[in-house]
């Protein structure tokens, strides 16, 4: 026994004396910590998956798998061939990963499964997005690592080899801070309200050298894009407007947009609650030309088991305000419910993006069964959005915000007959009312076929008024509207005023607006015209100090500019 002790002691002594620098390094080796790499490359093991090439042809899964394998073998070769310089090897490996990543990225386009249905593509997370990575050693409930990372950031995480770990990664797909978990692994419902919440998890036994997570985030909510178009109500959506999606009625509304507590250990939501409504400020303009008059916003719901039977989906305009051409704000009735038409049951499957488009169109006033526009047609050349009119891409033809004015703009509101602009000479070519967005919704009063102007002329259920307005006096005939009153609009009756006409010299005639006692003419165009003498049929009435004569249908020249009041061609709802 004594003879054996000495050599052991001697070995220890010689180590101390012989290799001081190595001793220091060895103390770092001892835990056998391993690096964790969040690698972009994703294994695709699904035999059913084919890759779609840009030319539309598909490849078998073999090719994708083969290219992945090739990438790995390249890495391995690098390690083997340059074993003498390990730090350089790492650089070599890094380069290979980069190349491999790019190759895989171009190959991992949208793919289809065997049944032919589209399968979502897996794409790289944007580099400006953040996510949270949580690491736990199996059997422990306290994370050994919990940190926010930018996409592409090295976690600089080392773990002990041969131990089993569970990891959890989640993101709200933004560049701001990522919510955290509490001690039970729960993320608060409020932190996930209307957020693009993504989650991934996995477990592995740490191996020596690198370990790869291959994080693939899966959406945990169903998304619904709402596009709200207010071009047909002639104003832009204000930032403080709010919207919801659900079922039911204005007073008994079931919000389908939910948030909930998400537990990372069982990867599911619980305690669902209504998410906040979508604000106008959270929506983005679809087209810069009309800006806030068409905005799109995305709802996210954790209520992914919900279904909606046919025609029961509702968009609720909790608060809709629009900014009119005169910069005033029009506020519509709170919680107006828009019923959406859909022939089949809708589901809100996790990871799906659905779309609802709503176009709001200004309602009219009903007189004698015909729906009339509330205000006169004007031409706003600044909203033509181009050098010439293009269907769907113009807001130049529109209705005035209200009837409270004495003097129309001579160049915007007095229309030659059938011309593309008020002063245009391309006569009998264009029904200007049909160009009001959305095109085809409105039209000129049809005197030719339906005698609509004659019917109005003969409708004596009307009153007259002389009203003091900001720029003078408005002399009007008023037909009672029989439709439901909409308090958002200043008038719910058909108000036609004596604005005279524009003669061929470009000056307005017969306008009584300077005083309450002036004389003038009430003239409105119809669609009827006579080519033989280039005249059209108009509604005509004399006004003497607010005392109106009998209305009649008369003829006026194409080249005379007259006010136009459109009627509905299509009634929705």
């Amino acid at each position, binding site marked *: 026994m004594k003879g054996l002790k000495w050599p052991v002691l001697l070995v220890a002594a010689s180590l101390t004396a012989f290799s001081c620098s190595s001793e220091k390094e060895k103390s770092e080796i001892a835990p056998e910590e391993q690096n964790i790499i969040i690698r*972009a490359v994703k294994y695709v093991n699904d035999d059913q998956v084919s890759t779609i090439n840009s030319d539309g042809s598909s490849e078998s899964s073999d090719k994708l798998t083969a290219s992945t394998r090739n990438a790995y073998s390249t890495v391995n070769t690098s390690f083997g061939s340059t074993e003498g310089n390990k730090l350089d090897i790492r650089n070599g490996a890094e380069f290979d990963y980069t190349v491999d990543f790019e190759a895989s990225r171009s190959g991992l386009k949208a793919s289809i499964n065997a049944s032919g249905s589209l399968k979502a593509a897996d794409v790289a997370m944007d580099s400006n997005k953040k996510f949270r990575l949580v690491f736990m050693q199996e059997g422990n409930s306290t994370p050994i690592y919990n940190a926010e990372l930018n996409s592409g950031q090295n976690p600089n995480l080392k773990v002990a080899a041969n131990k089993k770990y569970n990891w959890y990664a989640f993101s709200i797909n933004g560049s701001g801070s990522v919510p955290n978990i509490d001690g039970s692994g729960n993320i608060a419902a409020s932190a996930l309200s209307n957020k693009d919440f993504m989650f991934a998890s996995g477990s592995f036994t740490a191996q020596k050298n690198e370990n790869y997570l291959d994080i693939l985030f899966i959406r945990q909510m169903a998304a619904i894009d709402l596009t709200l178009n207010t071009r047909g109500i002639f104003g832009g959506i204000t930032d403080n407007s709010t919207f919801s999606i659900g079922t039911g009625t204005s007073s008994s509304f079931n919000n389908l947009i939910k948030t909930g507590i998400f537990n990372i250990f069982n990867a599911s939501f619980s305690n669902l609650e209504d998410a906040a409504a979508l604000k106008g400020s959270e929506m983005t303009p679809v087209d810069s030309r009309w800006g806030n008059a068409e905005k799109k916003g995305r709802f996210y719901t954790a209520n992914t088991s919900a279904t909606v039977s046919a025609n029961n989906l509702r968009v609720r305009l909790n608060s809709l305000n629009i900014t009119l051409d005169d910069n005033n704000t029009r506020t519509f009735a709170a919680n107006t419910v828009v019923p959406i038409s859909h022939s089949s049951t809708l589901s809100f499957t996790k990871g799906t993006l659905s779309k609802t488009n709503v176009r709001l169109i200004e309602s009219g006033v009903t007189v004698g069964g015909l729906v009339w526009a509330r205000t006169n047609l004007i031409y706003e050349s600044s909203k033509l959005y181009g050098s010439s009119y293009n269907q769907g891409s113009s807001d130049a033809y529109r209705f005035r915000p209200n009837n409270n004015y004495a003097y129309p703009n001579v160049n915007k509101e007095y229309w030659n007959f059938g011309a593309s602009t008020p002063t245009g000479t391309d006569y009998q070519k264009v029904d200007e009312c049909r160009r009001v967005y959305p095109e085809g919704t409105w039209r000129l009063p049809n005197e030719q076929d339906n005698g609509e102007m004659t019917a109005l002329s003969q409708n004596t259920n009307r009153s007259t008024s002389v009203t003091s307005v900001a720029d003078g006096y408005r002399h009007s005939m008023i037909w009672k509207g029989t439709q439901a009153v909409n308090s958002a609009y200043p008038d719910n009756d058909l108000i036609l005023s004596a604005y005279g006409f524009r003669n061929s010299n470009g000056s307005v005639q017969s306008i009584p607006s300077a005083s309450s006692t002036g004389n003038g003419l009430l003239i409105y165009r119809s669609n009827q015209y006579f080519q033989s003498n280039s005249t059209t049929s108009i509604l005509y009435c004399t006004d003497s100090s607010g005392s109106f004569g009998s209305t009649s249908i008369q003829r006026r020249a194409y080249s005379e500019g007259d006010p136009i009041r459109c009627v509905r061609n299509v009634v929705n709802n």
Partner: protein
Amino acid sequence: MMELKMKTKLVYIAPRVTAQEVELEQGIAAGSANINTGSDGQTPKEREYETGWSNGKDFDI
């Protein structure tokens, strides 16, 4: 006794130990150097949305 001790120190067992150290040095290089895998190598992926339903409505208001 002191002389004996000095003699045993001169018995060269140390070279064997050094050979073991080469093995360990390999471990150092693989496990403790910083990993600079670059941004792409550390980039997670996300699965894009699948297309759901789509509908629309013109609504008079």
